[in-house]
């Protein structure tokens, strides 16, 4: 309204003009009926709503704008009201269904007022089309339903709680993870999920939520309905109402128990492996050392023995003296040999650990150990284990260690290569032996190195000690088996043969 115009004075205005403008511009339908239900007036909006031209409905019973059964019963509604004054719609308004000329129906909001015109009782109805509103509500309902379905189908627990920790929603993921149904949890305190020693955690989380702080991927422990404690990763965010007030918290919890168990298992395997390494390195180093010392010691004793034979042929006091000295030398060499034998006997006590084993099972375990925590999962592994393998009588730890060694060597050899294929197979050789073959697609083992491969302290690895294969050989031979580098066109092929348990 602009100040340079005079305001309209309705007290003196032409009321029929006011009614005309009201009725013709109203977006909602306006219908006036008499006490028998006959239409006295309908405005322009009604033509659109019901698709009847105004003159077609003028004087007709308003029930024609309703579908059955209201259509037939409308007169009795009116009678009922007129005799009892018991209003169901008059003075109130509610959602009803309208009927168009073509018989189709639509939802509408009808409010009805009662008044008198020329001393006759009339009812004024205002009709608001709800078609769009319904469509919107339906689409909202559908999208809510979809959202709920998404939440519900989530593997994770999705739930909400108020600021007192009372659960307000609970999806099926939550039911599965925690074991409580939505019925059991909604309205209950979330604290029943907390192990006693973690109760203070909830206080802390709620304090943070009230201050608007979210918690992301917090790892903690909760207790299932069956009492089992599970590891979960938890994210909690504040929920705000339309005014921005924090009214609760939404929680997403993921069950990471399996993951934790797998990690613990992997750590345990690593630890076992480290232990096997330690124990074996000590005993195998000693064994390799004993073997290597044996060679020069054998040569010394042979040389001295030969020298003694030569000297004894000379009849001379100096020669006699020299012979005595050579005898003393032999005694000392023999003593050194005895020490080595004792050491070896001590190491061979490990034989007592031999049990009946399935070589294939050892291979599988060794593979698990070999690839634990390693970044070598892009190595293509081809495992072909004969199903009819006879049992072997072995020290499980030692033979597994040999296999681990071969597998790791193969993986190391292929590092940086384009093709990284590791094949491991087991099979029978005759009736008395089983063989394991480990081949890789690395650069292979060449000339000089190949000849001395199984000797201690020979390595092609920058960081290697070079005792791996010599230890393997010591261990395999202690089992009456053999280990060797097989000829191959490309890559390296190592083979290990072990006598079967029933070999005789």
């Amino acid at each position, binding site marked *: 309204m602009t100040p340079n115009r005079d305001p309209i004075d309705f007290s003196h205005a032409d009321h029929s003009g006011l009614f005309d403008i009201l009725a013709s511009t109203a977006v909602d339908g306006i219908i006036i009926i008499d006490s028998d239900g006959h239409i006295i007036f309908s405005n322009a909006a009604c033509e659109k709503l019901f698709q009847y031209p105004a003159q077609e409905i003028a004087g007709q019973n308003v029930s024609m704008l309703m579908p059955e059964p209201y259509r037939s019963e409308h007169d009795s509604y009116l009678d009922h009201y007129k005799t009892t004054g018991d209003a169901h719609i008059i003075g109130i308004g509610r959602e009803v269904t309208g009927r168009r000329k073509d018989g189709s129906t639509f939802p509408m909001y009808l409010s009805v007022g009662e008044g008198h015109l020329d001393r006759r009782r009339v009812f004024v109805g205002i009709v608001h089309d709800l078609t769009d509103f319904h469509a919107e509500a339906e689409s909202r309902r559908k999208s809510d339903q979809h959202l709920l379905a998404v939440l519900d189908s989530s593997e994770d627990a999705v739930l909400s709680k108020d600021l007192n920790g009372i659960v307000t929603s609970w999806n099926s993921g939550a039911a599965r993870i925690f074991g409580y149904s939505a019925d059991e949890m909604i309205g209950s305190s979330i604290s029943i999920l907390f192990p006693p020693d973690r109760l203070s955690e909830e206080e802390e989380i709620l304090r943070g939520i009230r201050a608007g702080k979210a918690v992301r991927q917090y790892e903690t422990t909760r207790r299932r309905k069956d009492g089992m404690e599970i590891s979960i990763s938890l994210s909690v965010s504040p929920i705000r109402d339309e005014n921005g007030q924090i009214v609760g918290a939404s929680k997403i919890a993921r069950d990471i128990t399996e993951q934790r168990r797998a990690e613990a298992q992997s750590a345990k395997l690593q630890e076992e492996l480290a232990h096997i390494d330690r124990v074996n390195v000590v005993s195998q180093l000693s064994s390799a050392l004993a073997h290597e010392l044996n*060679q020069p010691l*054998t040569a010394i*004793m042979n*040389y001295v023995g030969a020298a003694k*034979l*030569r000297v004894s042929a000379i009849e001379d006091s100096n020669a006699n003296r020299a012979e005595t000295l050579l005898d003393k030398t032999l005694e000392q060499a023999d003593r050194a040999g005895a020490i080595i034998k004792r050491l070896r006997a001590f190491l061979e006590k490990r034989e007592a650990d031999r049990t009946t084993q399935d070589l294939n099972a050892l291979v599988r375990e060794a593979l698990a150990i070999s690839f634990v925590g390693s970044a070598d999962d892009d190595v293509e592994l081809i495992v072909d284990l004969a199903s009819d393998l006879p049992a072997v*009588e072995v020290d499980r730890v030692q033979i597994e260690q040999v296999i681990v060694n071969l597998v790791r060597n193969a993986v190391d050899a292929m590092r940086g290569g384009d093709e990284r294929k590791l094949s491991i197979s087991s099979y029978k050789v005759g009736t008395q032996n089983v063989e394991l073959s480990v081949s890789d697609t690395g650069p292979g083992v060449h000339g000089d190195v190949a000849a001395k491969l199984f000797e201690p302290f020979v390595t092609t690895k920058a960081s290697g000690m070079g005792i791996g294969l010599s230890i393997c050989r010591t261990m395999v031979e202690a089992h*009456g088996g*053999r280990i060797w580098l097989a000829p191959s066109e490309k890559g390296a092929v190592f083979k290990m043969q072990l006598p079967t348990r029933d070999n005789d």
Partner: protein
Amino acid sequence: MSDQNLICLVDDDESVRESMRELFEAKGFRVEDFRSALHFLAGNALQSCKCLIADIRMPEMDGLALQDELNRRGYHFPVIIITGHGDVPLAVRAMKAGAVDFIEKPFKQDVLMDAVSRALAPPSSSRASDDPKFAERIAELTDREREVLDLLILGDANKVIAQKLSISFRTVEIHRARILSKMQAASVAQLVRMVITGNSGS
């Protein structure tokens, strides 16, 4: 010495090979030595060899494989296996493959010479039935000791023997010590050799 006594040595360790050669030559034997089984198989010495002494552990072809190859080619001269590893199962395998003896490194020259003398002796004197001492000693064993001995010869570890006979590990150790003492063997290795050759070695 004539070809009658040609001794062939196969060992990849040069010092061991050379020192053994010195020893045999000082004793008056004719010796040829080879640094690998393949070199030996490729040479002429194969035809006139009367006793082969081979290391069990060698690259390319080890002592056991060499034995197999000689058997395959039909050579039956005595083979003495030298091992740095006095392991019973391995020794049993060597003996089964036809070795007449095996010796643990390091060895005293007497041990080596005795083994060679036995290998070169006419076969009749090394038969079990012809060695009364061996038969006598075997007879001294109790039934249970005989059982333990049989399993020892199979190359079974003490623990396995204990399981098979349902007796304790400790009991097996006691039996084993008694067997060694009754058979007058210095080691299980020697015991295995005795039983397999049927010769007391004395």
